[in-house]
C-alpha cells in the first residue's frame, strides 16, 4: 500500500472517531454542545472519513498513468492531503463560533476553509483524471 494511501486512510479513521465522539457530545444530556454542530458532524464524516478513504484507495488501486510512472508520493498528492485537512480543521474551529455570533473572525476563516477544500478537490481531480482509463 503506497505511503500516501496510508496517510489518507489513517487520517480518515481519526475523522471517523472524531465524528462519532462529536455525535455523542451532541446527544449527551446537558453536554453543552454549541448549536450548528450537525453540519460539522456530517462534513467530518463524509469529507474527513468517506472522501478521504475514497481518495486514498483510488490513488492505490486505479490504473497507473503509465508504466514509467510508479505510485510514489507525488507533490500534488501531498498538496491535496494538506489542503483538504487544513480546510477541514479550519472549518471545525470556525463553524461553532459562526453559529454563535455569525460575525467576527469566523466568516473569513470559513471562506479560507472553503477555498482550501476546493483547491484540494481540483488537485485530486487533476491527478486522478488521467488514471481513469482502460488498462
Amino acid at each position, binding site marked *: 500500500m503506497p505511503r500516501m494511501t496510508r496517510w489518507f486512510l489513517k487520517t480518515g479513521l481519526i475523522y471517523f472517531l472524531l465524528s462519532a465522539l462529536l455525535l455523542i457530545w451532541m446527544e449527551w444530556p446537558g453536554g453543552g454542545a454549541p448549536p450548528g454542530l450537525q453540519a460539522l458532524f456530517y462534513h467530518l464524516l*463524509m469529507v474527513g472519513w*468517506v*472522501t478521504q478513504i475514497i481518495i486514498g484507495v483510488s490513488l492505490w*488501486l486505479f490504473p497507473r498513468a503509465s508504466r514509467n510512472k510508479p505510485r510514489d508520493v507525488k507533490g500534488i498528492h501531498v498538496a491535496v492531503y494538506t489542503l483538504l485537512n487544513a480546510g477541514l480543521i479550519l472549518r471545525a474551529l470556525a463553524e461553532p463560533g459562526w453559529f454563535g455570533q455569525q460575525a467576527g473572525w*469566523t*466568516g473569513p476563516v470559513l*471562506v479560507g476553509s472553503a477555498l482550501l477544500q476546493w483547491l484540494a478537490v481540483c488537485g485530486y481531480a487533476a491527478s486522478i483524471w488521467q488514471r481513469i482509463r482502460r488498462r
Partner: protein
Amino acid sequence: MLVNKHAVVVPLERWMFTTGLHVELALLGWILQLVMGTAYWILPRYHEEPKRGSPVLAWGSYTLFNGGLLVMAGVHLYVLPAFGALAGRVLLLVGVLCFVLLIWPRVFAFMRKD
C-alpha cells in the same frame, strides 16, 4: 456554501434549496456514482463478451442516473418547476434499477463451477 456564511452569495430565502443541491451533488453525484463506477469496474467479470454485462443496461444506468441528477439540480435552482422533482427521482430510481440488474449476476464467489 461556506463562502455564503461570510458574504451573501446566495439569497437567504434560497439557502435551504441550495443546501439540498449541495447534498444531492456530493452524495449522489460524487460518492454514490464513484461507488457504482468502481463496482462496475472491479466486480468479477464474465468469461465471454460483454465481460461486464449488457452495455445497454450500463449506459442506461449512467444516462438515467445523471439525467435524474440534472433534473434535481434544475428544480433546486428554480430552473424547473417543483413537480419536476418527482420526475428527477423516477429517473434516479430507474437508473439505480438498471445498475442493480447489471451488477446482480456479477456478485458471486470466485472459482464457482456453474
